[in-house]
């Protein structure tokens, strides 16, 4: 029987952050670890559109048209064949009201996990964020050294502007990504009139390198975010996985899924199933770190405790989407190369640190937008080139806390079922739109739409960390309530979600927990 000091399950952001902390130890990562054979053959969307090759864009089996019949069948970012593999693991459903499944989805079996499809905003939480969200047994200071280490490893672009209080002080930012003329217009208007404003606005922090960094080429901003998971310059956990493997800093056991674990006083026995042969093997470890993603880690823990039907809390971050129009920019050119995330804003209210990400929709096809324009498609098609140069999209996130009705459980067949009936409309939309009007940006509350539960992809809260955990909760050092050697390290342990994207924080927290395991003395 093989034996390691540490076994990590999953190569997503959490698993990789923990592995970096434990590299060089006796370390094994067990992962399904698939990659796609599909390749998007163009480096930019414009080149692809000009080539006149519909199947390269829409897929050899028209996969990009997966939403043609059912608009919400698959998330827009997971349609293309070269991206679909990211979410083809264990399936789950999300129900927003009794009998209505609003999302059929699946966990990630991809090497690098869901980071292959993330928006790459990597943001720190501070004590105000954590305090507003509530129930955290640690403060931001506990995460600070891990944030620093990860940022230095990943390479974060951004700017020390008015968002520094919201995003945190740092001296290591790479130059910011290029922005569209519409976003540049909004930023200039804000800078001219910001004294009277109730919002702060600036550049986001992105895991997108804008100049050569640690030997990696900068991003060329080809706007192929909906078509490929492999773009130069955009960090995913897969990059770090490759680094660790190349340097021989850990054993990587791909093609395996952990199906059970059993703890003894001296070690943990981990049962892994080969995806190819279905054979099981047992690996022994002093410490087991579960980083399969909030939902899949919760499933594994429930199965291992024979807790079919047990309800665990579940938190998502479904955003509110609002189109923004800048009439004075109508008809202006769309940028040749850009990155979807343009700007970030927040309200200057200490109790409502909402995050407003402002996107440019250039990475979408025009046809993706047609059903949302309440006009005949032929005139909508003629309107779009005039509108898009002056159009942005605000994606609004607010804090998300556990609610007794929003829960995850396994049904009798072991399938994951998530109920998420509690979702309130964003209450400060009128205030936000009024403030944006000061800068020549217009929209209307009726144009806002709420993403269905589950579509936020910021999952958390199933096994929340506590000072004194009860059943199906975790200790501050990540240990399951009833275990000494088994720890959850991913989003499942975050007790609530501040408005900000939680990717960097779950990585920092995973590194912190790995450090606890390393120094626990047993």
């Amino acid at each position, binding site marked *: 029987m093989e034996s390691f000091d540490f076994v990590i399950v999953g190569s997503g952001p959490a698993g990789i952050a923990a592995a970096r902390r434990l590299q060089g130890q006796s370390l094994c990562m067990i992962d399904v670890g698939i990659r796609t054979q599909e390749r998007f053959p163009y480096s930019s969307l*414009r080149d*692809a*559109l*000009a*080539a*006149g*090759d*519909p*199947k390269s*864009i*829409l897929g050899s*089996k*028209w996969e*990009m*048209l997966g939403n*043609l*019949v*059912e*608009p*919400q069948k698959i998330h827009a970012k997971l349609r293309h064949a070269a991206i679909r593999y990211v979410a083809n693991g264990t399936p789950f459903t999300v129900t927003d009201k009794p009998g209505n499944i609003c999302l059929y989805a699946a966990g990630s079996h991809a090497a690098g996990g869901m980071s292959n499809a993330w928006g790459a905003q990597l943001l720190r939480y501070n004590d105000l964020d954590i305090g507003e969200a509530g129930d955290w047994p640690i403060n931001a200071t506990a995460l600070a050294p891990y944030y620093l280490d990860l940022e230095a490893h990943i390479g974060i672009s951004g700017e020390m502007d008015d968002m520094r209080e919201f995003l945190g002080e740092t001296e290591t930012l790479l130059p910011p990504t290029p922005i569209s003329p519409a976003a540049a217009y909004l930023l200039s208007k804000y800078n001219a009139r910001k004294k009277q404003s109730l919002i702060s606005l600036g550049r986001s922090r992105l895991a997108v390198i804008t100049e050569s960094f640690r030997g990696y080429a900068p991003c060329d901003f080809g706007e192929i975010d909906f078509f490929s998971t492999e773009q130069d310059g955009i960090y995913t956990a897969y990059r770090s996985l490759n680094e660790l493997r190349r340097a021989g800093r850990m054993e990587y056991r791909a093609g395996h899924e952990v199906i059970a674990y059993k703890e003894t006083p001296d070690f943990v026995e981990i049962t892994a199933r080969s995806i190819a042969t279905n054979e099981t093997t047992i690996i022994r470890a002093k410490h087991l770190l579960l980083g399969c993603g909030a939902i899949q880690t919760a499933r594994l823990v429930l199965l291992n405790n024979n807790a079919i039907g047990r309800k665990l809390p579940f938190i998502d971050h479904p955003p509110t989407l609002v189109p923004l129009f800048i*009439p004075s*920019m*109508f*008809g*202006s*050119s*769309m940028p040749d190369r850009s990155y979807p995330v343009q700007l970030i804003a927040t309200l200057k209210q200490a109790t409502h640190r909402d995050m407003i990400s402002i996107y440019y929709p*250039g990475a979408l*096809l*025009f*046809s993706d937008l*047609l*059903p949302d324009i*309440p*006009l*005949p*498609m*032929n*005139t*909508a*098609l*003629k*309107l779009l*080139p*005039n*509108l*898009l*140069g*002056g159009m942005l999209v605000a994606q609004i996130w607010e804090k998300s806390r556990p609610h007794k009705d929003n829960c995850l459980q396994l049904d009798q067949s072991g399938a994951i079922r998530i109920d998420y009936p509690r979702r309130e409309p964003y209450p400060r939309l009128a205030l936000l739109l009024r403030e944006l009007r000061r800068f020549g940006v217009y929209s209307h509350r009726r144009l806002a739409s709420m993403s269905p539960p589950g579509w936020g992809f910021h999952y958390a809260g199933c096994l929340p960390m506590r000072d004194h955990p009860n059943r199906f909760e975790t200790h501050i050092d990540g240990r399951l309530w009833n275990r000494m050697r088994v720890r959850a390290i991913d989003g499942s342990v975050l007790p609530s979600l501040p408005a900000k994207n939680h990717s960097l924080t779950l990585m920092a927290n995973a590194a912190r927990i790995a450090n606890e395991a390393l120094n626990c003395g047993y």
Partner: protein
Amino acid sequence: MLTLKIREGFSLITDRSNNSLIEEVRYLHLSLFGRYPDNRLIDSYCDALSELDLPTAVNQQNLTVEKIIFHKLDAAGIEPWLRKKNKYRHMLSIKLLLIAYLAECDGGHTEFSRNSTNSSLAFFAIAYLSSMSFLRLTRGLFQKLRYGIV
């Protein structure tokens, strides 16, 4: 004969001749772009329809599309009145949207140009197109009611 794939759980089969599909794509393309499609787009349309998982249970909606083509009605003007907020799109929306996707990706439709328009004229263009939209919507509603389109 081209046989459309039928999703499991849906009962009705629709066998359509290539000719009627070609007539369909030609008419719907004309409604969207004011001209007939080239053969490549027609082939892509037939291929995509045979590959996609279409809910043919909505046979009534297929008949609606056929009725629109038979009576030479304003497909683009009628479609917004048939747009659905529920789980499945109307078959007319599906087919128009499919043609839009194929046209956008074939490199030959200048309607999808991402280059700048004349910004000083953009306002006038938007105002003109909005008023044209109003007229098309009005005509579409009239035709929908007159021909009992659902």
